[in-house]
């Protein structure tokens, strides 16, 4: 999947993944996609809830070797 911007938030604990994601998505235009990498296990629910509440869409998500990757489309 093509992302317009990639955010590496690996190693960060709560609340950093969401705070970083918010900063990163603010720099995008509506419809563009942000790719986020995290290792915080809570970020799975956190980023999903945050995206929903902020009007963005999680287009896809995967988990591989403890790294979560999210593709979030800006709403």
């Amino acid at each position, binding site marked *: 999947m093509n992302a317009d911007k990639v955010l590496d938030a690996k*190693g*960060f*604990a*709560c*609340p*950093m993944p*969401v*705070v970083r*994601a*918010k900063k990163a998505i603010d720099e995008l235009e509506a419809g563009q996609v942000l790719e986020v990498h995290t290792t915080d296990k809570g970020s799975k629910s956190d980023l999903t809830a*945050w995206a929903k*509440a*902020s009007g963005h869409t999680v287009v896809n998500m995967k988990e591989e070797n403890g790294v979560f990757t999210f593709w979030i489309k800006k709403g």
Partner: protein
Amino acid sequence: MTEQKKKTTIILFSGDYDKAMAAYIIANGAAAYDHEVTIFHTFWGLNALRKDSTVPVKKGLLEKMFAKMMPRGADRMGLSRMNFGGIGAKLIKRVIKKHNAMPLPQLIDMAKEQGIKLVACQMTVDLLGLQQDELIDGIEFAGVAAYLADASEGNVNLFI
């Protein structure tokens, strides 16, 4: 017209490191949720806003005693449980580092960076004998009415 922002208000009454950390984590999360966030510091929670260096100010004996006995700044606050005279706070900071979580002073810096409104309750600032110069820059001073104005429009209101 853009949709009006949601609001989160937090009263930080506690001067415990762990409780203040929880308050600031929620506040930073709420800011990422695009909420307008206010943290209203009162009583012991004011210590989170103290500068960590001594500031030469004139005060009476009682105020001097208060200033000595209260933690000078966020980093010197103790834990609400298992503090063991400060050893617990030292240990938790080590654990925070290990888990790559953010220590309280950095959480406060990030809160300011995210435009979170930090308010000191003027009445308790006076009660505890603190002076504006002893508190960090970029904060506001207000009372119960200002808090209520924010809180009555708040979607999330917490007392910690």
